[in-house]
């Protein structure tokens, strides 16, 4: 219940932050859609599924740049502009997938991290706390994970993760200074539909 931050715990905290940041960075990709700039994406499954924002791939194509520098062309399998989410597929089988957390069990005040390429800076991680969960006044009735942390345009489509590096959301927009992320359980539902669609095709 009580925070005890002595010099030692501050050092351990620092170490943990960099370890979790590194884990998150490996499963975060850059997404280019042929226009200027790049968004981010999350390797959701090792067998080729990548999730990003719909607005990141509004150019109609998607080239993925992985943390290790590899680049691959991806197919845009599903895109839902109203929820600003898109499912991409690359022909690969051993991608460093993110560990997915439970966005239904998050708590206000818990530590959250975001990874992405704000302003084109690759592999950037920012940390903060979960500000609130739920709709945002004047943004609509959708539920968001509202994060008290620093985001920039290149973070779009990238992961919002908990303190163990488990992805709990997809960063989508900045509103009134808050980073808004689509909860991971909604992403899972969306991805299941996209996978069925690909199987059917």
């Amino acid at each position, binding site marked *: *219940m*009580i*925070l005890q*931050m002595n010099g030692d*715990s501050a050092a*351990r*905290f620092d*170490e*943990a*932050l960099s*370890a*979790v940041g590194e*884990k998150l960075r490996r499963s975060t990709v850059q997404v280019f859609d042929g226009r200027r700039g790049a968004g981010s994406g999350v390797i959701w499954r090792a067998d080729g599924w990548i999730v990003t924002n719909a607005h990141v791939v509004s150019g109609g194509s998607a080239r993925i740049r992985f943390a290790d520098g590899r680049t691959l062309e991806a197919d845009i399998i599903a895109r839902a502009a109203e929820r600003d989410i898109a499912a991409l597929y690359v022909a690969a089988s051993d991608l460093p997938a993110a*560990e997915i957390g439970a966005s239904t069990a998050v*708590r*206000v*005040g*818990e*530590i959250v991290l975001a990874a992405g390429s704000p302003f084109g800076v690759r592999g950037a991680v920012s940390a*903060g*706390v*979960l*500000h*609130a*969960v*739920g*709709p945002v*006044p004047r943004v609509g009735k959708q539920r968001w994970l*509202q994060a*008290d942390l620093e985001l920039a345009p290149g973070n779009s489509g990238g992961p919002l993760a*908990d*303190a*163990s*590096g488990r992805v709990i959301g997809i960063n989508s927009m900045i509103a*009134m*200074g*808050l980073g808004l992320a689509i909860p991971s359980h909604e992403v899972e539902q969306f991805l299941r539909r996209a996978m069925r669609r690909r199987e059917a095709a």
Partner: protein
Amino acid sequence: MSTSNSSNSSAALVALSNDLANVVERAGQGVLAIHARHRVPSSGIHWQKGVAVAAEHTIKRDEEIQISVPDGRTVPATLAGRDPGTDIAVLKFDAGDLTPPDISDSSSLRIGHLVLAVSRSEGNHLGASFGAISAVGGTWRTWRGGQLDQFLRLDLAIYIGFSGSALVNAQGQVVGLNTSGLARGMAMAIPASTVNRVTKELLEKGHVSRGFLGIGMQPVILPAAVRERLKLASETGALLISVEPDGPAAQAGLMLGDVLLALDGQAIRDTDDIQAHLGSEKVGKQVSASILRGGALTQASIRIGERPRRGR
């Protein structure tokens, strides 16, 4: 890296994360949403059983105020009083079974200490913002004339509902009332001791009294020759440009054109220096004034009055 490896290395972060969420949950039991303005509510703190404190500048109406409490109810509240000088408003409401949070003195806060601002917003949701104490100072006279026991500047993000939210320390105790309304939008906190003092006065009297001299002043530079002759230390004083008839200063014999040099031996270099002598506790007390009149020093004893209240 294996999963077990990464969970080991993240342990310190997970522990801190859980601590923060616990702190928010616990302190949040004492944080309220105050509906007293158009559109979005502001926050407030359940300070004493059935007594809420809020940021005065967010209380836009005196009636039809409602409070959303942590158990999900929204109940009517009555305004007990407001003090724009310290940006504190006090409201009364039916707290039911709710108990006030753990409130602690802020004097042990140091620059760099981790703190949270815990708010309650539309839909009765808690909101949290995490940061650090970025500056700590002694007593601070606000630009609206009130006095805070401690100057507390916060390094954290301000979101809707920040004003009136609770400043929570790492032990989960409420140590102040946050506001962005005292220093041009800057995030700062009113220390718990000031909230206690003002709340007590507002509950007892419905307002916070201020000392009153009944004079208008303008700072003036004292002529070098006069300063030399009278061996005056300060270079400036306060020239009386109006004296209210029958006011405390007039009754003590002060006149238009007098230059006020000191009160109770403390130099008056400009009009701000006067404010320190006009706190609520000074009302009714005698204060000795050093005056420059016609090139000579003279003394007067003024009984500080209470500033007349403007009708709201």
